[in-house]
């Protein structure tokens, strides 16, 4: 392993760590046994969203600690929890209009387009873009633009108008998925067939087959070609 040590500062405290590590690995290397600020370690859960700065530069930078390599003179902090507002609603009682989203999250109307949210997104999502789409009533577009959101909440923590946009985006996606997306007829049809017992006998037969019979059937399977 590369043992080229660099200086970093964790909550102000000086540490030396190998420069080959991610921020998360560097915290652990320094001796932190983490329960907060760590999750999937693969860039999908948003638990390790991190704000940092490099000495001598006033700019704040944003990253996922598990996906970002340390650099010299980093000033690191953990964000253990962010108390984002999340009103209670029942999806089953909603129809799928943008007005409903705005009724649940009225603060969305306070957006004045500063774009700080987009700049703070570690996923490089056009956050302002989906908020604008939502404000124009385009739920499908808001769902599409926000799809790769891992809900870390950095955009909310930085928003001067205090918009809880990652939760509003999730509501847009759930409304799109359940109400607005075209439905597949083949799925409904298959469920009806299963309920009518169409496959029961065949499955029963398979369940009672011995290993040899199953092996023969398996070897003789016809494989659907690629498109």
């Amino acid at each position: 392993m590369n043992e080229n040590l660099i200086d970093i500062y964790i909550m102000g405290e000086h540490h030396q760590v190998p420069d080959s590590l991610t921020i998360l690995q560097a915290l652990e290397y320094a001796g932190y046994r983490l329960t907060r600020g760590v999750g999937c370690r693969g860039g999908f859960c948003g638990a390790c969203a991190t704000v940092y700065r490099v000495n001598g530069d006033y700019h704040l930078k944003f990253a996922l600690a598990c996906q970002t390599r340390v650099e010299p003179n980093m000033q690191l902090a953990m964000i253990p929890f962010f108390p984002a507002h999340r009103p209670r609603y029942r999806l089953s009682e909603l129809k799928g209009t943008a007005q409903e989203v705005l009724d649940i999250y009225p603060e969305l109307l306070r957006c004045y387009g500063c774009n700080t949210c987009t700049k703070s997104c570690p996923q490089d999502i056009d956050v302002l873009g989906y908020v604008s789409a939502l404000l124009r009533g385009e739920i499908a577009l808001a769902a599409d633009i926000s799809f790769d959101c891992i809900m870390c909440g950095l955009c909310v923590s930085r928003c001067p108008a205090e918009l809880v946009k990652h939760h509003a985006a999730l509501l847009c996606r759930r409304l799109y998925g359940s109400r607005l997306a075209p439905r597949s007829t083949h799925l409904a049809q298959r469920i009806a067939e299963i309920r009518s017992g169409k496959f029961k006998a065949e499955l029963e037969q398979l369940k009672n087959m011995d290993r040899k019979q199953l092996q023969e059937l398996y070897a003789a399977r016809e494989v659907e070609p690629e498109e």
Partner: protein
Amino acid sequence: MSYPSPLEELVRRVNQTREQRLKQSFPRLGAEEKQTLLKKFHPDYRADSFAELEVGPNAGERAPKELVRVLEGDSPVSDGSLGFGEFEYETDVLVIGGGGAGCAAAITADDAGARVIIATKLRLGDANTMMAQGGIQAADKENDSPAIHYLDVIGGGHFTNIPELVEALVTDAPEAIQWLENLGVIFDKNPDGSMKTIHGGGTSRRRMHTCRDYTGAEIMRTLRDEVKSRQGITVLEFSPAVELLTTPEGEAAGAILLNLNLNRYLRIKAKTVIITTGGSGRLHYQGFPTSNHYGATGDGLVLAYRAGARLAFIDTMQYHPTGVAFPQQIVGQLVTEKVRSLGAQLVNRNGEQFVFPLETRDVVASAIIRECQEGRGVKTPAGVDGVWLDTPMIEVLKGPGTVKRELPAMVRQFARFGIELDKEPILVYPTLHYQNGGVAIDAMCHTSVRYLLVAGEASGGVHGRNRLMGNSLLDVIVFGRRAGREGAQLAKERTGSFFPGLEHLSRWRQLLRERKGTGVSVSPVLLPDYTRKPGNRIGGQGVGEV
């Protein structure tokens, strides 16, 4: 070019053979060839890394040494010091584990009118479900059927799967997809609403449903949001269970949780307990890096085993063929099988294919290990073995822009380290991915302990000795819902009074003393320790040991 110079040369070789390989289709292996390959190279067959259990319901059976150590562990809880009679919470259904299976169980139990508590170690949704990229299987197309799905599952598991469990999995699958869609999950679709589906390793029909390459994340964030919407579900985060509570008759009756914020025990009395704690990749069997979540330490197996539940298939783990081998920072993280579904080939250091890319996972993993052991692999500057996964091939096969459109999460992951997935191949090596076995269950998720149910990766038998891609997301939804329904029903039927206690633990401790003496470790381990200490793994991914 973002690879260091010794690798750069090898990348050129992959580029040179691409056009020729486009015309070649590597033949699939026959049944006997597969068995020979597995026995020679699959980690499940490395006898010296297994040990025999001496205590508990599976005494006499073998399991990985690391698992045996935690299964034969002692509880952090002392027998008599808890002052029973008072409980911080009482509930109908206690769900231990807040991942996909746990949330599906909680929602379903809530639908059935039960009072539900979810106790989870980290945040709600911090689980392997969140990380599953590839997809979810369901036989819902006209040319497909639950019976065809059944045959794929049981063949993939080498005909060892429990038939009733496979039947449940494939029969409930289409309904599981519809249930998710009704909750707001956005599946990839054609303009007419039909599902866009693709192949996975070992499928005979294109039945993999996807949400870009965020399938698990999309499902998990939706389930989590639904749980938060429900007043009947109480969520206790940062509160893992450390011991089950049982009645003198040996029936499940609740659990003791450890509140990690306050380092304080919480006692919960529950009519039914559902364990949905997932897998155990963070035990790093055989020193492998893992694609698993930070919390995947096999806690549920430990709790259930001490309470007397029988385990099944615990001697087999899934090593996902394509874990990241370079760059060093993300070694062991998953490269989704969808990459091969889209057409990327596996290529050795000579630029040659060596396996059909969509064989089952155990077979592909074994073939990669063979290439590396026999000198046809690539060594990274950090000394990690790997072979090439030819991602630019997808662009050639399916058109420019396909990689960015279909694999946004992966593109982002590699771009952070300067590698352009659509232009350069990547280096991969098998990573510890899935616990094929777990607590033995029947089709309604019952275990050998009454009022104790298990669902998802913590259970064993559905997948036999090898799971197919897209059947774990399906498993957590199908069996999570079954457990929720059954848990609520059992709670309704349990009308008499019952007294939760720790008799099982006293018996367990006596057995431990008799068979193991002193010096057993304390389990569950809850979280891995990656701090810089002798013996610990720096970086948490198998980057190297101090």
